[in-house]
């Protein structure tokens, strides 16, 4: 905890969090240990999970097919659980670039990418990426060539999208680990593409 040691008054909502949690522990609804375990589980889930899935799909055509047919089951093959949700993986090609959003709230493939960045949950991104994706992507630093179609996928509470980015040229013969190292979180949201640094 960053605030340990120096006294800072709690904000109203922090006070509410502490109080709610303690009340629920007192009532036996949850235990402190369960809260700690859940926090640990959250910390273990980062974009390197998604990157492993992408790298496998790039190197194993049969896995790629299974991933596109049933994202949840394919991830489970790699020992990556996708609790309680249906995962739909959308594949970017030289003709089509995919990007994900949740216009209604903040749905995100967090079991594979960790918690979403603030901008993903922002009003500006949620409102505009479905209407003018090319402009929004440019604002985020990605210029999509004019002849490439952009497809925007709006998530729901029951299912989540993740982008399988296009494997960049110049990566022939790379190991899965090396491939995974160029697959960033933003590549799997679709606001960046994997880059090969020379």
């Amino acid at each position, binding site marked *: *905890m*960053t*605030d340990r040691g120096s*006294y800072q*008054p*709690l904000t109203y*909502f*922090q*006070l*509410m*969090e*502490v*109080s*709610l*949690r*303690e*009340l*629920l522990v007192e*009532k036996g*609804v*949850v235990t402190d240990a*369960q*809260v700690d*375990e*859940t*926090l640990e*589980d*959250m910390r273990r889930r980062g974009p390197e999970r998604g990157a492993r899935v992408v790298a496998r799909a790039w190197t194993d055509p049969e896995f790629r097919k299974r991933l596109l047919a049933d994202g949840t089951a394919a991830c489970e093959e790699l020992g990556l659980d996708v*609790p*309680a949700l249906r995962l739909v993986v959308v594949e970017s090609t030289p003709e089509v670039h995919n990007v994900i*959003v949740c*216009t*209604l*709230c*903040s749905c995100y493939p967090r079991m594979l990418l960790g*918690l979403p*960045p*603030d*901008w993903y*949950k*922002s*009003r*500006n*991104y*949620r*409102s*505009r*990426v*479905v*209407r003018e994706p090319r402009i*929004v992507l440019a*604002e*985020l*630093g990605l210029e999509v060539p004019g002849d490439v179609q952009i497809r925007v996928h*709006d998530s729901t*509470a029951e299912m989540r999208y993740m982008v399988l980015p296009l494997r960049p040229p110049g990566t022939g013969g790379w190991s899965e680990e090396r491939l995974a190292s160029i697959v960033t979180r933003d590549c799997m949201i679709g606001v960046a593409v994997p880059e090969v640094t020379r």
Partner: protein
Amino acid sequence: MIERSHHDMGGLPAGPVERGEHDYAEWELRVDALMTLLTGVRSAKKLMTVDELRKNIEALAPDAYDTMSYYERWVISITQTLIQRGVITTEQLARKMLEVEKRGR
């Protein structure tokens, strides 16, 4: 035409997208963890659903929705849901908040 709810913003005009992000504070992560537990994902008792979380977030007044941070909306919504479900009462929560405030954290 049916008027849209405030949270239903897809396709509406809005400002430029900036790559802002912050490291989540511990209390924010704990709110998230609590939600996971209350929805019964990690073998705890299922006491609420994601739809209820959303319903009570979407019920916030538009200016509250816009001025509150993400996990502030969550903690309000979770609290509201648990009160609606009778898991906790407003009085119990108020008492607890007073106690925690006096204690200092």
